């Protein structure tokens, strides 16, 4: 889980500085990273806020943008079901792309494993957001540093490592094509729709392979 915490660093810095650039106070910017704890949702909502979008349209966009968590939660559901409410709530709060990927690397992720991984992501997220917040006034344009490439690398490496059979290859290729087409038309739910279509294609081939 350590390499993944490292990957959180540039995103945290970006999210922190973006919050200040969007006009949030230091307390609000810290609060946003500590409470929302979702990189893509924070960056998208802040850029919408800057362009003057309404609160409702921001919330709807974020709802679809983070709807991949439905799928994460569904795949973890059987493990999480017998846990106490407190444990379920804490893992719910800590559930991110990175935590899901980390959990998927284990056959049967335990609560301690998920809490440890989730909490280490959370701590580095808040700390490096804070760094971005403090840097925001000093470094004028963090976007020229290409910080977001690190998330591309981590997700791409993990996606490749998670491909176990032919069906998964077909699924990933379908998702890739779909997400580029849908992003071209600037659909808010491009990620979800593309992910879903790839899963559908993979499941079709999975049945053929049986």
């Amino acid at each position, binding site marked *: 889980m350590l390499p993944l915490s490292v990957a959180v660093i540039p995103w945290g810095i970006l999210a922190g500085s973006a919050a200040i650039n969007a006009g949030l106070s230091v307390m609000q910017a810290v609060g946003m990273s500590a409470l929302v704890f979702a990189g893509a949702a924070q960056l998208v909502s802040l850029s919408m806020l800057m362009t003057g979008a309404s609160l409702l349209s921001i919330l709807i966009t974020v709802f679809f943008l983070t709807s991949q968590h439905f799928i994460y939660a569904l795949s973890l559901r059987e493990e999480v079901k017998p846990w106490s409410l407190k444990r379920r709530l804490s893992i719910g709060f800590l559930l991110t792309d990175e935590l899901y990927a980390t959990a998927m690397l284990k056959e049967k992720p335990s609560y301690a494993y998920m809490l440890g991984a989730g909490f280490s992501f959370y701590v580095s997220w808040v700390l490096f957001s804070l760094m971005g917040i403090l840097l925001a006034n000093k470094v004028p344009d963090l976007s020229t540093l290409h910080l977001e490439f690190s998330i591309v690398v981590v997700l791409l490496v993990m996606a490749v490592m998670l491909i176990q059979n032919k069906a*998964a290859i077909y699924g990933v290729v379908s998702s890739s094509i779909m997400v580029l087409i849908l992003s071209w038309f600037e659909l808010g739910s491009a990620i979800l729709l593309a992910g879903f279509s790839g899963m559908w294609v993979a499941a079709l081939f999975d049945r053929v392979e049986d």
Partner: protein
Amino acid sequence: MTWLFVLSLTCVTFFNQYLFLEPKTQIRLPKFATRMLKYAAPCLMVSICLPLVFFEGGHWKGIFENSYFYGAIFTLLITLLTKKLLLSILLSLGFFYGLNLLFDF
């Protein structure tokens, strides 16, 4: 107003994260759906990262004049070749930043 923005975002993301972790949320998944879930992680991951490679603020970044494209190709190849998580991440980041330094994209 800004606090309302922060807190309502918190509610939306937490709702999405927790909804299906709650056992009382009634769902009966057909067999095909559980088969689809097996492939959720890799499909969603490429769907999240490819727009970052090819788009910036809704604008197409191109292919051959786009350092993210070369970086992603390198990442793909090095992962297939080494099958090692941390090594692939480090080499890919090194390649990408080296490329940007050398060719000034």
